């Protein structure tokens, strides 16, 4: 699918008044995150990578957002949300169990580990999890629907949209301090915001986005 904000890059504004020092530090640290797992095992990580590819599919023509690594990082830091559903185990335990259980379901139903299944089959397994139809022993009583909505979907989606590449995709203004925004009305953008491509005129948007600063 064609880009909606061609050529727009939030990172191009790193040294403008839209970013401050503490924001650069934080984003740099996130971008420098190692791609290998620190908390999950290799197998668990492989499963997570495959799941993430289905939940937040990415275009092949750009460097991918390391979703699995970001989730693994959250688990390593044990950075919870501040609450959990009574029927769910704590963060780390929930993920370990859930990843193992999904992989187990794949092996039992389709004779292959999850990451080796083809995309439609993977989607089917995930859908079954979302609808609460998976209840194998590996779940140890954890409802698959709850795991899906409260952990799997949530943590993966939060990880994806914490990365600057995703902000470019959706045309988000990105970091904004000390400089915020001037033009807040309908169909108005400041020169440092993303320009949206019109159906007839992608080149013009690309031109505008090159000048974003």
């Amino acid at each position, binding site marked *: 699918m064609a880009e*909606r904000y061609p050529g727009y890059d939030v990172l191009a504004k790193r040294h403008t*008044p839209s970013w401050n020092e503490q924001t650069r530090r934080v984003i740099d640290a996130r971008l420098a995150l190692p791609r290998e797992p620190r908390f999950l095992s290799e197998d668990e990580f492989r499963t997570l990578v495959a799941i993430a590819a289905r939940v937040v599919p990415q275009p092949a023509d750009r460097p991918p957002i390391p979703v699995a690594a970001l989730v693994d990082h959250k688990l390593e830091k044990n950075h919870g949300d501040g609450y959990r559903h009574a029927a769910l185990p704590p963060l780390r335990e929930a993920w370990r169990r859930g990843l193992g259980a999904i992989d187990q379901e794949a092996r039992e139903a389709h004779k292959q580990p999850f990451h080796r299944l083809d995309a439609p089959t993977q989607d089917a397994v995930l859908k079954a999890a979302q609808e609460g139809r998976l209840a194998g022993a590996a779940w140890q009583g954890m409802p698959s629907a709850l795991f899906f909505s409260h952990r799997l979907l949530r943590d993966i989606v939060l990880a994806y949209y914490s990365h600057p590449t995703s902000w470019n995709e959706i045309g988000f203004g990105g970091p904004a*301090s*000390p*400089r*915020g*925004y*001037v*033009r807040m009305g309908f*169909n*108005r*953008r*400041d*020169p*440092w915001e993303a*320009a*949206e*491509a*019109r*159906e*007839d*005129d992608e080149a*013009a948007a690309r031109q*505008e986005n090159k*000048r974003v600063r």
Partner: protein
Amino acid sequence: MRSATLPRERVVGVTPTGGAALGGLALIGFAALLLARRSAVAKTARPLARVVPKLPEPTRAARPLPEPRPQPPGLPAAVRVGRRLNQASGVLAVAVLLDSAVEHYRGSFENKAMISPLVSSALSIAASLHGVADRRVAAHRARDTVYAVAGLSGFVGTGFHLYNIGKRPGGFSWLNLFYAAPIGAPMALTLSGMLGFLAERVRDNDPSEAPLVLGFPAGRAVAALAAGGILGTVGEVGLLHFRGSFQNPAMFLPVTVPPAAAVLLGCCAARRDGAPRLLTRWWLRATALLGIVGVGFHAFGVARAMGGWRNWSQNLLNGPPLPAPPSFTGLSLAGLAALRLMEEHADG
């Protein structure tokens, strides 16, 4: 779904260089206008033949007329005052050019007509510079046209601004008066045009007679326009300083000092004796000075906003408008010119 049908919103790419160039040119014009007056006074170039009006013999116990002010040799009063009015018009036009440029840039020049006050005020500046240098007695047709167009543009602009305010949800609410197109701003262009127009009318007079403008004594006409213009500007400032909650006590200055000047000027216009009006003169000078000092206050406001000058791309647009205060300077100069007229010609 892509928004295929909406007009592409153009973000006019005024680069920092462009903006600085515009500002620089305007400042040069502003300085030229202020300096031109002084050099003209210093020079006494080819003195024009001038007949000093003879005083009538005192035949009966008539009210003695005051001594006419000693006329410096050289230019007739009409021309001198005319040039001062050109200057006043020009100063006001500089404020209009810079302010409308910034504000319409903020509005993304969404409507193509938004370029017209920039063009019109720029031409007015050129006309005013020309007028200040011009020592001829007659009105100048090209300048007349430029000024008349400026005067008209301001009215048209007011119409646009009223439409802009009224069409938003809430119509003429406080919120829209604060944040939609500023209701009084285009009239500054009209005032600039009218002052210039009056400058030409004043010139267009027989040097031996008291200048008239469209049948009215010139001094009073200019005074009325200047006083009215000052009050209108006070209204606009009051609205915007109200929006700023008068958070700094200095924000009360432009809603107290100029109105007093306008009232004093109005009173002078109502009198007939031609006596020098010292208080009014000094109050107008104070108002003129306030127009310059105001820029300093506004600069302070930009500096203390988040990110200060470094965040100019936001703060010059969102912050207190730097080019706005010198409107008072232009209008005060016109008021001072009116005073001069009224003093030189007892019932002018």
